[in-house]
């Protein structure tokens, strides 16, 4: 059974189109990354999953329950780090967890939960004194209450330092290994790349791609790019490189050659150039990053949508 199913979901705020005909299925036990620039509709989608916001059209099912009519049943089995939340300034971290535990009717140790997110020391301080990162961790601890079947995390790494972001990824994997489905949104790609089984890319309220990271790479024709600076360029040398196995393209810019190729073909490219009598002065490889992929999808999609 799917953990999350969206079918033809559309939402408008006045004249602004927030979501348009979004279809999406997230399987059980999956870590799903929901990507998109700010304002793409990620938070609106999450708000609809939790019945904070009602769609104009479409069906939404979460953990087998209708997201609107049976929202409470959904939220009983879901842990949430919502978008645009704030903590209760006057209540301590401990009181926040007490609220979550009482609300879910579980019997967990508050100090254990706070230790898991690394803020056990601040348990009795008012949450209003917490930094943004600490507040984020506190709400994450609340989300973990009751070992939920589904974790919905909106921009979970916001306000976390690199170490905190790493802990967040470890925690997401641990929750998945426990059997939970994790659905999280981000506009920071490396976090998604590091942890997700599949990603969906949202742009201007439309889902423009859903695939694995590798699948996305292939789809945009990404690979490694080898940049070689030589003393001079000959047509023969370019032709020789183009004939090599694993080379998908060569572009010449003055005395610089940009070679799109597989990882294994790099050595052959260099030795072929030298065999053609050219002097290799410098070379560098760049892996086509998700950053570029992301730009390809979002800006490319923009051009498509608007023309």
């Amino acid at each position, binding site marked *: 059974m799917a953990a999350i199913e969206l079918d033809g979901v559309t939402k408008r705020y006045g004249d602004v189109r927030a979501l348009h005909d979004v279809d999406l299925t997230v399987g059980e036990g999956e870590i799903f990354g929901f990507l998109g620039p700010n304002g793409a509709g990620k938070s609106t989608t999450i708000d609809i999953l939790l019945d*904070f*916001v009602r769609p104009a059209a479409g069906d939404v099912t979460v953990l087998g329950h209708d997201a609107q009519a049976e929202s*409470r049943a959904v939220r009983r089995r879901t842990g*949430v780090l*919502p978008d645009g939340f704030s903590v209760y300034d006057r*209540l301590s971290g401990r009181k926040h967890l007490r609220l979550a535990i009482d609300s879910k009717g579980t019997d967990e140790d508050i100090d254990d939960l706070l230790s898991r997110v690394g803020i056990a020391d601040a348990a009795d301080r008012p949450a209003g004194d917490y930094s943004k990162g600490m507040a984020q961790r506190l709400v994450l601890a*609340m989300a973990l209450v009751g070992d939920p079947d589904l974790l919905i995390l909106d921009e979970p790494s916001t306000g976390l330092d690199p170490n905190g972001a790493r802990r967040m990824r470890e925690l997401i994997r641990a929750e998945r290994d426990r059997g939970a489905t994790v659905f999280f949104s981000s506009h920071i790609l490396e976090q998604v790349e590091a942890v997700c089984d599949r990603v969906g890319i949202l742009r201007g309220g439309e889902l423009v791609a859903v695939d694995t990271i590798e699948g996305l790479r292939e789809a945009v024709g990404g690979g490694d790019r080898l940049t070689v600076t030589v003393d001079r360029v000959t047509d023969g040398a370019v032709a020789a490189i183009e004939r090599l196995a694993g080379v998908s393209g060569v572009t010449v810019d003055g005395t610089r050659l940009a070679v799109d190729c597989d990882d294994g073909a790099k050595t052959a490219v260099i030795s072929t150039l030298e065999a053609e009598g050219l002097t290799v002065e410098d070379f560098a490889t760049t892996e086509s990053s998700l950053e570029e992929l992301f730009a390809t999808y979002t800006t490319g999609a923009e051009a498509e949508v608007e023309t």
Partner: protein
Amino acid sequence: MSDAPGAAPAATGDPAPSALVVARKDFEDAVRSKTLWVVTALFVLLTGVVAYFLDAIGDALAAEGTELTATDFVFVVQIPGQWLIPLVAVLVGYKSVVTERESGTIKLLLSLPHTRWNVLVGKLAGRIAVVTTALSVGFAVAAAIVLARHTLAVVPYLVFVVLTIAYAGSFVGLAVGFSAAVRSGTRAVAGAVGIYALFGFNPSLWDLVPLGINYALTGEFFFETPRGPEWAQAISLLSPKSAYNTATAGFIPGESAFRQAAGGTGDLPIYLSEWAALVVLALWVVVPMAVGYWRFQAADL
């Protein structure tokens, strides 16, 4: 749009009813705010002054050989209480829901398995608990001052305290319901001022309604009797303040200023009785809460 409001805890397997969890959170949050302390201090000051005043009157009465009655205290504290208590109750309630919406804490609360109805009922209960705490402290202080040198009939006094809490509750209901119905804090402030002007202030805008009708009908502003005809009393009774005055006059033994003013001519019709007054107070909780829920449940947060 949403799960059945107030689903029975037994059916859902919750250890504690959802609204109770919300109420507890809300109370704990509110008692850490300055509001409760300011409100309690205000009220203690009021009851303290009244009790001190009564203490002095009690001495004067004792010199003439009469005793201070519990009813005296009730009617004396009621005069400032009927406008101060709405102020306190509206202050405690008007921001309750809208602040959570504006700040985003509502998303924490509704990420947990509570329905929007649970949240509203929990808010109402939490804020009534806050007001009850403030009033109880105030009345306890007053009782202590009076009891130091005089007697106080316990049962009528407790009845009075309960009725006063119900009176405060009707304004909390109004304020919480309004807070749930609006989107911004500014509108909540406007609502609080409006509620207070319409029902809390003395005389309130509502008090003028029967007079206005009378003027339209007869060209005379005031009625021949202090309370006017039954239709005027019925309109008047719809305000929480009149309902409160009617209820205290009816339920607390001793002199009833209300009945005397009406001429003491036998029993009043049931719809003007102290029981009707209780129904009115309850309606001022139920109706605004229902309207607030109707708006709140349909809202995008």
